């Protein structure tokens, strides 16, 4: 008997403007002890399937056809109370968006203990013990202390691990993991994958894992299903899919996987197009709006300099200052980014990468140290007007696409906002034209403009975020894991666009990522962070060939190798 089986699943989102069929006639099965990988285009309907299985489709979404069986028992037509009993206990779910999946007002401990007590019927003390143990298992350092913290005190990757711990805590029979490792560094990722694998093997748990990371697919899955536009286009053993795909879409996907071993000038891309009108226009930056009118002052020396940055968080507020517990998330970080350079920042999850990015963009005020832009110390500028000039040159793509978009604005207004604000166009019609164009270039299509953020998949939202960042025609772009939620082919497309911008216009970037192959392809120099400190800053190639710091060496050794990847149709440009 199949552990989990999905038959002819069909899901649609009806709306006034027509019905979006998100999933169309999909059949999947998971056996006990088996790991099924689901890959596919961003927006293909992968998360929707996961939601449907546990019966938490968001309205107006509804299952318009098909059945779901758990151990032969049909579960999609159960009463809501019976469904609830299955959730968490028998089917564990890890949602795609770790940053918003946790209740902001309760400590991690409260949320863990509550779930453990409910499902395992343990006493409070036991449950607490188990909570700490779980955190330990998912690689949260210092779990005894951390367990008392609130979600906002965790980094993106750490929250993701808490979510995993929550999903695993009742030892369910089936685990549905929606991009569980996107925000994790390779070592933690390896640890988590190991944990999951062990669960599957020892407890005969079945797992459905949705991911864009071919490394993860190669590492953990037994079988792989490939989705495209709501349809299941191909299914087979991992070996088969990665090594010898049949469907042209799968082929195009595999070809776009960034190579960890050598640096290519551009990301290889094989466009898979069903319909001719979907073909993306090639973009000529020299004539395109994005490339025009850059009136920035020339800068001598490095564009961005970061000097001895320190960021202190209060982790336990207290009545008196001396009883307060504080913690330096970033501790004495200095580096510089030259003009036209892409500076990579890698490192342990929770090591302070996002915090550095936020300090540079002015969102956090450093406790100590200085951020200089073109020689000007930004931390000292007081007047808004003056800062404006620099802000226009600087943009940021946030790590979490779910919360960085205002849910009450339409995509059109979100992307147009920076253009309108900086008065980069002369008419509204022009602005709207540019926004449409940008949306197309990030692969969303024009019809996205009138929708609201919550109507999009994770990857699609990330693309909105990217379009918004590009809309100001920035000189310096801070990218906090810009593409981790994207499928590799879209990723390639966007990274190529960034590369073009960099080459033609000298766009400077701070590029934070856990994806080492991407780092290798994108960055000129890399800084490696661990526990709030910069342990190594070096040329990218040097890092990959001869890492110096022990931590760097460890990181690289854990990088998935993807040896057996199909290399069909892949032409190596430059190198």
């Amino acid at each position, binding site marked *: 008997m199949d552990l989990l089986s999905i038959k002819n699943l069909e899901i649609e989102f009806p709306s006034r403007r027509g019905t979006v069929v998100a999933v169309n006639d999909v059949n999947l099965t998971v056996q006990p002890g088996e790991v099924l990988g689901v890959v596919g285009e961003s927006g293909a309907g992968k998360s929707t399937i996961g939601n449907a299985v*546990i019966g*938490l489709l*968001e309205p107006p979404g509804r299952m318009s056809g098909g059945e779901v069986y758990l151990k032969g028992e049909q579960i999609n037509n159960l009463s809501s109370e019976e469904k*609830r*009993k*299955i*959730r*968490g*206990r028998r089917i564990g*779910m890890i*949602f795609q*968006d770790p940053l*918003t*999946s*946790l*209740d*902001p*007002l*309760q*400590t991690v401990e409260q949320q863990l203990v*509550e*779930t453990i007590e*409910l*499902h395992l019927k343990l006493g409070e003390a036991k449950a607490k013990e188990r909570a700490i143990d779980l955190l330990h298992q998912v690689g949260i350092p210092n779990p005894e202390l951390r367990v008392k913290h*609130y979600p*906002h005190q965790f980094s993106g990757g750490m929250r993701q691990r808490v*979510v995993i711990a*929550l*999903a695993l805590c*009742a030892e369910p029979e089936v685990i549905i993991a929606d991009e569980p490792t996107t925000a994790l560094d390779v070592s933690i990722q390896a640890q988590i994958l190991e944990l999951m694998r062990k669960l599957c093997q020892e407890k005969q748990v079945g797992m459905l894992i949705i991911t864009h990371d071919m490394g993860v697919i190669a590492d953990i899955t037994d079988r792989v299903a490939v989705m495209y536009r709501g349809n299941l286009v191909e299914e087979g053993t991992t070996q088969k899919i990665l090594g010898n795909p049949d469907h042209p879409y799968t082929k195009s996907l595999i070809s776009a996987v960034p190579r960890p071993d050598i640096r290519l000038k551009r990301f290889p891309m094989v466009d898979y197009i069903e319909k001719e009108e979907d073909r993306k226009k090639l973009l000529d930056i020299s004539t395109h709006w994005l490339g025009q009118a850059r009136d920035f002052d020339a800068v001598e020396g490095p564009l961005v300099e970061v000097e001895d940055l320190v960021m202190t*968080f*209060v982790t336990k*507020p*207290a*009545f*008196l200052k001396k009883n307060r517990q504080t913690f330096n998330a970033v501790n004495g970080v200095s580096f510089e980014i030259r003009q036209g350079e892409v500076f990579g920042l890698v490192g342990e999850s929770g090591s302070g990468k996002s915090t550095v990015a936020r300090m540079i963009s002015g969102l956090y005020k450093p406790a100590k140290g200085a951020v200089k832009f073109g020689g000007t110390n930004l931390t000292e500028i007081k007047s808004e007007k003056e800062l404006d000039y620099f802000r226009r040159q600087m943009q940021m793509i946030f790590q979490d696409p*779910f919360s960085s978009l205002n849910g009450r604005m339409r995509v059109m207004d979100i992307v147009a906002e920076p253009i309108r604000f900086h008065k980069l166009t002369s008419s509204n019609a022009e602005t709207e034209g540019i926004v449409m164009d940008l949306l197309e270039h990030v692969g969303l299509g024009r019809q996205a403009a009138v929708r609201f953020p*919550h109507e999009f998949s994770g990857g699609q939202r990330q693309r909105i975020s990217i379009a918004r960042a590009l809309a100001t025609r920035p000189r310096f772009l801070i990218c906090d894991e810009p593409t981790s939620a994207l499928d590799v082919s879209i990723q390639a497309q966007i990274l190529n666009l960034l590369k073009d911008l960099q080459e033609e216009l000298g766009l400077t970037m701070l590029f934070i990522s856990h994806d080492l192959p991407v780092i290798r392809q994108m960055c000129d120099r890399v800084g490696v962070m661990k526990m709030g400190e910069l342990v190594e800053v070096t040329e990218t190639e040097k890092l990959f060939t001869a890492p110096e710091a022990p931590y760097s060496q460890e990181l690289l050794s854990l990088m998935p190798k993807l040896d057996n990847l199909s290399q069909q149709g892949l032409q190596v440009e430059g190198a």
Partner: protein
Amino acid sequence: MVSFLFKRLLQSFVVMITVALIAFSMFRFVGDPINNMVGQDTTQQEREELREKLGLNDPFLVQFGRFTLNAAQGDFGLSYKYRVPVSEMIFERMPATLELAFVSAIIALFFGIPLGVYTALKRKGILSKFIMTMSLVGVSLPTFLTGILLILLFGVMLRWLPTFGRGDVIEIGSWTTGFLTVSGLKSLILPSITLALFQLTLIMRLVRAEMLEVLRTDFVKFAKARGLPDRAVHFKHALKNTLVPVITITGLQLGSLIAFAIITESVFQWPGMGLMFIQAISDVDIPVMAAYLVLIAFFFVVINMIVDLLYYAVDPRLRADNE
């Protein structure tokens, strides 16, 4: 935190002084106190003398200065009308008002929150639509009308409940309480319902509005995905996330219940501070008004301070901003 409290305390003095200042500039618009202090036979000259003696002819800054100086020494003067120390009067009235405000706040919260949650969950249900509509009938009828209608129904027609006053009270130290006698408790019912009706509707609607938003968030979905029972999802996770506006409004409403439950107190002849205050206004009893307003300012500062502290207690994200 200590410095937070200290700062607030300091600010509260400024607030109270400002209130006194505004109050003094206001009093001459309320009417002439003399007419309420003497009979109609009293001669004009005597009236003038009295004005002079009371310092009513002094420039208002002088009057204000005198008030602040005396107040600083704990002396708020004598009520013009009752000729007893104002502070005594206020403290005598305080228990009645506080008990009433407390009971109605409890009623409002006790019913308002669950009903708000219910109507949010069953947004389209018939019952919740009915509740939403009925709650409005309660607020759109003026308090004096609902009060009288309640009296008519329960006091006059059914004769179940007393129509006025506090019933028998028991003195515990300097506090008088109606909680310990049957007639005291019975007397509480109608006025507290009258007062609570409005608060209840407001809280219920606020909770509903906020719940609707929160119920769509990812963490609620994840809580459901973990299999948590509905009660935990709705009350522990969702509800808690709606609390900031609810706390704000509850705080403000509690403040105004304590300070200005004027109409309810008059309709039920509830011997509380609101009634005293409205009487003081109509009698132009300046010392009572002045002391009372300053006291109320203090109340509000304290209540709002508690509200702000509750924000921190409820929402850890705000704690980092503290200071």
